[in-house]
């Protein structure tokens, strides 16, 4: 049976893992390679590395980091942050990333999704959507969730699927950092409309939140950061809990 996936997200700045609340007030949570390897051993189903600064200078650091991760991690991993061209994607895949995640650059130039899917295959193109509820509507935001667009989230999800995205990483800016639970209704809406997997992100604070997002939220995968980094929830215990709740989980021993 196809399982639901648990995905720790490692936000990277200057080659280190950081995570803040609502994307500000960053705290240091350790070495990304070491952390990634630990998660893989613990039974994480996939890893996501988001380079949250991604200036030109830091690009080389990121590539080197990806190479180090690929040497030790034997599960799929996605790299995102500042990707805006075929050359960026090619460099990351060549360094050993299995998928890349694009966000603002896709909003700026939606044809980029088509180009990347054609060149590298849909399976490795994740489109991240940062969304916020504004005046009664879910609206796509860019630049780490700071800049609103005019695009409705559901329409954008359908568009990127049509353009060849392989997966949607849906982050609710309303729930992110709150630990009050995922945006269940929105996730269910997007996942129900899309025929590609939806990774729900933002708001995980308890094991029960994962149950909700996989059942009512219809998510294919659940992503979280700080609760894993600071060991508030440990992955083996989470997977056992979900499994006992009747949710299909990968067992690893």
């Amino acid at each position, binding site marked *: *049976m*196809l*399982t*639901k*996936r648990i995905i720790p997200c490692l936000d990277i700045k200057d080659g280190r893992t950081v995570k803040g609340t609502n994307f500000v007030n960053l705290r240091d949570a350790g070495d990304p390679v070491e952390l990634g390897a630990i998660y*893989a051993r613990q039974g994480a*189903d996939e890893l996501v590395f988001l380079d949250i600064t991604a200036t030109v200078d830091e690009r080389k650091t990121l590539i080197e980091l990806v190479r180090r991760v*690929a*040497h*030790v991690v*034997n*599960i*799929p991993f996605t790299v995102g942050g500042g990707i805006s061209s075929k050359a960026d994607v090619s460099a990351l*895949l*060549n*360094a*050993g990333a*299995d998928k890349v995640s694009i966000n603002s650059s896709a909003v700026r130039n939606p044809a980029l999704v088509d180009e990347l899917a054609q060149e*590298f*295959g*849909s*399976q*490795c193109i994740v489109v991240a959507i940062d969304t916020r509820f504004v005046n009664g509507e879910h609206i796509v935001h860019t630049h780490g969730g700071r800049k609103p667009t005019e695009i409705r989230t559901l329409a954008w999800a359908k568009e990127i699927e049509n353009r060849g995205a*392989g*997966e949607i990483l849906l982050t609710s800016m309303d729930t992110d950092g709150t630990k009050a639970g995922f945006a269940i209704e929105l996730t269910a809406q997007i996942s129900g409309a*899309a*025929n*590609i*997997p939806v990774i729900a992100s933002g708001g995980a604070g308890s094991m029960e939140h994962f149950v909700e997002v996989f059942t009512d939220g219809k998510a*294919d*995968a659940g992503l979280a950061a700080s609760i894993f980094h600071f060991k508030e929830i440990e992955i083996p215990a989470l997977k056992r809990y979900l499994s006992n709740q009747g949710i299909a989980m*990968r*067992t*690893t021993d």
Partner: protein
Amino acid sequence: MKTVIIKYNAGNVQSVMYALDRIGATYLLTDDEAEIRSADKVIFPGVGEASTAMAYLRERGLDRVIPSLKQPVLGTCVGMQLLCRYSEEGDTTCMGVFDVDVRRFPAQPGFKVPHMGWNSLTDLKGPLTEGLPENAYVYFVHSYCADVCPETSAVCNYVRPFSAMLQKDNFYAAQFHAEISGNIGQRILENFLKIDTRN
């Protein structure tokens, strides 16, 4: 031991190379016929579209080389599909090592296509699955699959049962990505490299 990874246009073989690095195996990435023929083990990976990949193999004569190989050959993902008879993807005549066709997953509510993520293997047969428990989980990403047939050596179920692995003589194949399938995938690769080729 000489292990060759066949180099062609269907996708990113980096993950396969890293996986072999992790288990301490050395390898050569090449599309040279003599190098391929002289290898002890041949890995034929693949991510991408079937007809484009087949056209590339034909151009270089690899469509004749690969089915004629005598040493153990492991095809993965699209590599596995190209070893089958025919693929619906791009209406493609493939190399016909395995006597089975590759078809798109039928549309069914509740089942997204591609089939992406970790799914379990059952009905395990053959040397590659040695030491694996029933219901071992491996990582899949694909929209097309081979039916279950007499050459099936592991079954997976998504919409309907399909061939997760195939084996016929010296040809082995896996639909999933063993290279990123955790310890189970690693074991499958080790099992392949361990196959005794002395007759």
